[in-house]
């Protein structure tokens, strides 16, 4: 089939050579890198509005803007626009040293003023920053030479992690104040590796390399990022040679094309699949929860359904995260699941019934995975009814604590801190948590403001252990992001899942 198709391709390419359409072919050297991206970019402001917290478009923002602190492909922080940072000894102040010699895309110099202005802007509730509750913990930002100092209104041990996370971008103060919000949307500038040359909404963005980039000029002078939301179309794009790089396609397609005409990388990213358990109905019974957790053969699901692309996890931490503890495990054990259910009077003939919600097509094989889980549950005596919901509905239900007893979701946490995984997902008072048990609230509560980093991490590990032992949530797997690319490009995957053109090099 494949061989056939290739020869047909060549034949047709030859006959089409005279055509005026001028489609690219694999053989050509890549002058202009074309990337087929999986989502549309709605807005160029990375600090306000819904786009700012949309993890799938952070890669686009990071091409044009710099974050306060650089995040390396393995998620560790490195000097970025800030070269040094830290707390005063009494934790009453933070200080940041600003990199010198950096210029904005319009040539004007980047200064400490810019940093202070940005931090003050997102701390102000009026601007509509969705992360205001973090940035608002700093106050009274001021510039001292190439340093920025701010007072700590409320101690947050993760504040510097947010500086390479959502909304942690630095915008040009002078330019933004001159052109206003609308003008900025029309012609955004940053300090990042690429400059926006042309932006066509719902279609593409053309980027030009920033020759003065402080991290060195990127390899490709011109990069076109096409927005191709349909996975089949993205695969067709790279398969036909119209695009050089694409991401997020069915793993079957990845396997089919990788090693054929195309090359590929598939690396784990900081995005996990999990099942929220709401402490209502059947889920108040610990036996049911534990049985549900033990009845899922995560490895079989990964191997059979995801073609092996995925990393089994038993806590909400992936191996890259700060609070990962390999000793916490919840093994697949069908017999134990049956035994646990029997203790509560359930069995295959008298199954416990509840509803499980899932998205469909939002993440790779999400719906299929839930179908497989329901199939595995059915064998031990759990009869779960599937309800598909859209991601928007999930957010609303979760914020209102109205999720079904079980709800499949994916959780991204590209800073790798336990507060932004276990913390927000499991802390009762947070609008993101649906588990309201007081014992857990009591355990997590003190950790928010814990100043001793080692103690803080150990505290979270204890929380994860408690959660695993009592099956308060069912972590499933860490996702692997498939990237297909032409052989002429070398792609470095970023564990945050952001596809970054300045990390791509000529082969």
């Amino acid at each position, binding site marked *: 089939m494949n061989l056939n198709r290739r020869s047909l391709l060549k034949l047709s390419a030859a006959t089409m050579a005279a055509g005026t359409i001028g489609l690219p072919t694999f053989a050509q050297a890549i002058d202009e890198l074309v990337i087929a991206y999986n989502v549309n970019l709605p807005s160029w402001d990375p600090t306000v509005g819904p786009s700012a917290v949309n993890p799938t478009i952070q890669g686009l923002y990071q091409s044009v803007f710099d974050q306060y602190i650089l995040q390396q492909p393995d998620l560790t922080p490195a000097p970025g626009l800030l070269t040094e940072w830290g707390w005063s000894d009494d934790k009453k102040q933070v200080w940041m040293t600003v990199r010198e010699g950096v210029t904005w895309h319009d040539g004007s110099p980047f200064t400490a003023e810019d940093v202070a202005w940005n931090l003050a802007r997102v701390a102000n509730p009026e601007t509509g920053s969705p992360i205001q509750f973090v940035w608002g913990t700093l106050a009274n930002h001021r510039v001292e030479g190439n340093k920025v100092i701010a007072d700590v209104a409320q101690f947050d041990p993760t504040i510097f992690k947010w500086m390479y996370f959502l909304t942690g971008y630095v915008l040009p103060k002078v330019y933004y104040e001159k052109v206003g919000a609308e003008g900025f949307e029309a012609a955004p500038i940053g300090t990042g590796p690429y400059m926006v040359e042309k932006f066509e909404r719902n279609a593409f963005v053309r980027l030009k390399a920033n020759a003065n980039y402080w991290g060195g000029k990127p390899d490709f002078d011109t990069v076109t990022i096409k927005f191709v939301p349909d996975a089949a179309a993205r695969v067709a794009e790279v398969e036909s040679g119209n695009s050089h790089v694409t991401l997020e396609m069915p793993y079957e397609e990845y396997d089919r094309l990788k090693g054929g005409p195309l090359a590929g990388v598939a690396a784990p990213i900081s995005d996990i699949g999990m099942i929220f358990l709401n402490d209502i109905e059947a889920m108040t019974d610990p036996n049911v929860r534990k049985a549900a957790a033990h009845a899922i053969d995560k490895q079989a699901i990964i191997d059979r*359904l995801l073609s092996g692309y995925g990393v089994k996890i038993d806590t909400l931490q992936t191996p890259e995260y700060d609070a990962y503890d390999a000793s916490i495990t919840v093994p697949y054990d069908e017999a134990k699941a049956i035994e646990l259910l029997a203790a509560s009077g359930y069995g295959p003939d008298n199954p416990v019934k509840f509803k499980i919600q899932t998205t*469909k097509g939002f993440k790779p094989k999400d719906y299929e995975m839930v179908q497989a889980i*329901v199939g595995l549950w*059915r064998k031990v005596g759990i009869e779960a009814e599937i309800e598909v919901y859209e991601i928007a509905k999930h957010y609303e239900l979760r914020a209102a604590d109205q999720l079904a007893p079980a709800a499949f979701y994916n959780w991204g946490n590209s800073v790798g801190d336990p507060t932004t995984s276990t913390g927000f997902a499991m802390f009762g008072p947070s609008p993101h948590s649906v588990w309201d048990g007081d014992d857990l609230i009591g355990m997590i509560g003190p950790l928010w403001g814990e100043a001793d980093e080692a103690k803080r991490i150990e505290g979270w590990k204890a929380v994860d252990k408690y959660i695993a032992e009592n099956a308060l949530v069912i972590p499933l797997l860490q996702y692997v992001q498939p990237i297909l690319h032409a052989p002429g490009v070398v792609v470095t995957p970023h564990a945050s899942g952001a596809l970054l053109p300045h990390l791509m090099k000529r082969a």
Partner: protein
Amino acid sequence: MLRRRAGLRLWLSALWLAALVLAALLAPWISPRDPLTQDLFLARLPPFWVAGTEPGYLLGTDSLGRDVLSRILHGARVALLVALVAGGITCLIGATFGLLAGFLRGWVDMVISRLIDIWMAFPPVLFSILLIAVLGPSLTSIIIAIVVIDWTRFARVVRAEAMAQGAMDYVASARVAGRGRIGTMLREILPNVLPTVVVLLTLEMGIAVIVEAILSFVNLSISTDDPTWGGMISEGRTSIYQAWWVLVFPLIALFLTVLAFSQLGEGLKDRFDPVLR
């Protein structure tokens, strides 16, 4: 010659639909396997004539190891249910409105016509996506969405037809003979509009089956793991190179069913000519 071919098409369509009804009714007994039973270790078995299959899975298995044939047979239930219920209710509501507007005229016609205009101004796909977002994806939602969007199809045609019939002499004579307005409508107009309605209904059933497939494509169809053809097609499309049978067989079933409904409608239209011209 032509007439015979038209007849043949009619019969073939009726035959396929009859077979489908049987399959749907008897699905639990004739399916070789439970359509929901999964076996991840028997996933993506090819159909029986291809090497590497397991006996008992005639048309292969999908990526969860479920039997494709059994799922198609059970999927026929959903397809027919959607076709019959959605088609039926759409027809009932649309035809009633159309009949009332076309025969009673006056302010009734004005209100209904305006309503039709407003409805026809909604982009149908977008509107159904919104509707299903409101109702949550389920069989009932699909049926409601089809009814809400397509009733105007019936209303418009039946209204025009009822208007034309209302102008005929026999209606006048029925009125002269002393029959009331509603009586005339039901006894004189309705039987003459019926052939049109039947043809539209047949066509609508085919449309309903297609709509389910389209909504599956945007991941908005039935949410349980009950098999639907549209759902199978959208699942199968991610692995066409690895397991084409997961896509192709339900697609054939869908295709033949829609074709049968439309050919049946066309055939009936020819039969009922010249009413429908």
